[in-house]
């Protein structure tokens, strides 16, 4: 089985530095693209590969690039931005790629920049990824010394420079238009769309924002071709996917597997099934903002087309398992606490609604919930639906809640009838206050 994205990565080892990376075939795609292909030809390959964005939304990458103004009249400079903010709870795939193969990230950026004729690239990295930062800095330095970055790459008339930007927290920075404001040194509030960043982005110039994993596919598509790439997959969307499983399973981890691998195979073969003494209740397939799936969905292939058949989204493809020792209401409370805290505060339905939701869930956990409050929760899942808030954070917060209300309704009601959390003696039961002052510098009234 081929693992193009992770074949250079050895667990807990140093990544390949330039000489070894080149020996393993590295930077081949840059030579091929710059010497034998036009930018339009590179774009065409990416479109034909059926690559879709791995940051959560699954937007076709080639299509996104097609909106970038090309030719001599296009506004300059154009920008390519790597979204390396990875802060969606339960997601741990981009860290692996950044720490494990930093040169692959740089190579990916160079060929992608060539395709859209970008002049400058930024890697927007979350502050906590210090090891990734150090390795990327070293890889950028090595690449620049070797002439892969700078003016007239490999003697062509294409010039490209990469800078690393390390951020300072807040989940909303990963939303692509908020990310652009963050890069410009403003508060990271999302921007209205249209205009889309492809046309009016960073400092008003055409900009492509792309997830780490998405971009890491590009060099392999260029080097090995579309046929090869599509054959890696078991489904309609091409390539491999880095899947992950966390929670009370025997062997939590992340693996690069054919796109379209079934949930059951991930859970049972790769993650080894549930830990002894724990029973499966459900899972969020792709991070905290995806709706829960249950037993009946386990044979669905993990890809963008199939997961919606179960009422959810593939999201980031890293799943979180809910077991029978964990309170589903507490589970929901933890998720909504996250979203309420991370709301940027720009639009009222989101920051008011999410903190209200969180308070209700906390009162259920404390044994003080009322039946009509379940209706208030349900109402929020409708009031914060897509299109009703300024960005996708709030609808993303409602997906898991709506599904937990659907599949675990009896557990919500038990909290009310018994006036206590039935899991209160479990480690995650409702015996301790899970609310405390957030860090001193937050001024958004999210609670």
């Amino acid at each position: 089985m081929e693992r193009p994205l992770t074949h250079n990565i050895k667990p807990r080892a140093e990544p390949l530095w330039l000489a070894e990376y080149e020996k393993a075939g590295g930077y081949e795609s840059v030579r091929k693209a710059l010497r034998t292909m036009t930018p339009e030809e590179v774009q065409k390959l990416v479109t034909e590969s059926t690559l879709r964005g791995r940051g959560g939304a699954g937007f076709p990458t080639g299509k996104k690039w097609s909106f970038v103004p090309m030719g001599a009249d296009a506004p300059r400079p154009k920008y390519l931005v790597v979204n390396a903010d990875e802060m969606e709870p339960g997601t741990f795939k981009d860290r692996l790629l950044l720490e494990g193969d930093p040169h692959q990230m740089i190579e990916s950026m160079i060929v992608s920049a060539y395709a859209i004729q970008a002049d400058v690239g930024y890697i927007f990295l979350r502050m906590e990824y210090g090891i990734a930062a150090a390795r990327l800095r070293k890889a950028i330095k090595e690449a620049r010394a070797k002439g892969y970055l700078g003016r007239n790459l490999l003697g062509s008339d294409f010039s490209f420079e990469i800078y690393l930007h390390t951020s300072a927290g807040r989940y909303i920075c990963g939303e692509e238009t908020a990310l652009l404001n963050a890069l410009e040194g403003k508060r990271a509030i999302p921007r209205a769309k249209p205009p889309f960043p492809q046309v009016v982005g960073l400092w008003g110039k055409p900009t492509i924002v792309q997830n780490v994993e998405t971009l890491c596919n590009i060099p392999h598509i260029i080097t090995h071709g579309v046929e090869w790439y599509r054959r890696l997959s078991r489904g309609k969307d091409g390539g491999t996917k880095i899947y992950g499983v966390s929670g009370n399973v025997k062997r939590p981890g992340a693996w690069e597997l054919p796109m379209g691998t079934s949930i059951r195979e991930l859970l049972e073969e790769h993650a080894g099934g549930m830990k002894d003494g724990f029973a499966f209740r459900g899972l969020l397939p792709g991070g905290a903002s995806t709706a829960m799936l249950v037993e009946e969905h386990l044979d669905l292939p993990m890809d963008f087309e199939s997961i919606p058949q179960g009422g959810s989204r593939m999201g980031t493809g890293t799943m979180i398992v809910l077991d029978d020792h964990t309170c589903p209401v507490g589970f929901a409370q933890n998720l909504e606490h996250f979203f309420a805290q991370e709301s940027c505060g720009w639009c009222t339905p989101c920051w008011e609604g999410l903190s209200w939701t969180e308070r209700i869930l906390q009162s259920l956990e404390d044994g003080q919930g009322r039946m009509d409050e379940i209706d208030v929760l349900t109402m929020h899942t409708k009031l914060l639906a897509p299109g009703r808030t300024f960005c996708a954070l709030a609808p993303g917060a409602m997906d898991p809640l709506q599904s937990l209300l659907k599949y675990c309704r009896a557990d919500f009601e038990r909290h009310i009838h018994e006036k206590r959390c039935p899991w209160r003696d479990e480690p995650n039961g409702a015996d301790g206050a899970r609310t405390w002052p957030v860090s001193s510098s937050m001024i958004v009234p999210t609670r």
Partner: protein
Amino acid sequence: MSSLRSHDRELITQHSALITMLSDVERAEIEEELLHYPDKQAGCVEALKVVQRHRGWVSDESLKSVAALLGMTSEELDSVATFYNLIFRKPVGRHVIFLCDSISCWVCGYDIMRKGLQNRLGISMGETTPDGRFTLLPIVCLGACDRAPTMMVDDDLHEDLTTEKVDRVLEQYP
């Protein structure tokens, strides 16, 4: 310069005085970051982090100095600084413990770690020990969910936590 009124000259003197409150090393590191952007404001988060690396936190005075260097008003810069949970606008301990409170860690025993840390340190989340050694803060998913529960102390990630392991880890941070 000679055509400037004394009021303007005074402002310029104040401005330079503010900038010179930053050390040469800090200024050099900030200037280095600024080379990456077409305007100075874009470097403001990196600039605040330079100061925080050297001083542990960003005081009002430091904030004013950075604002002067970047040509921003201090109000403008503070509105950005306070947006971020990892820019400290209040003093913190010598070491900062960031305990992941997101979903996978919560499922895998976050509450036990939190209680263990709070008991061991005698403080609650958001507080600093009286000896100034540790500040304890929650943090969102650290991207290591397969090794939950996790925490960061300063720049280091610690995974697969147990209460015993937490005790051992703390000893590494005098």
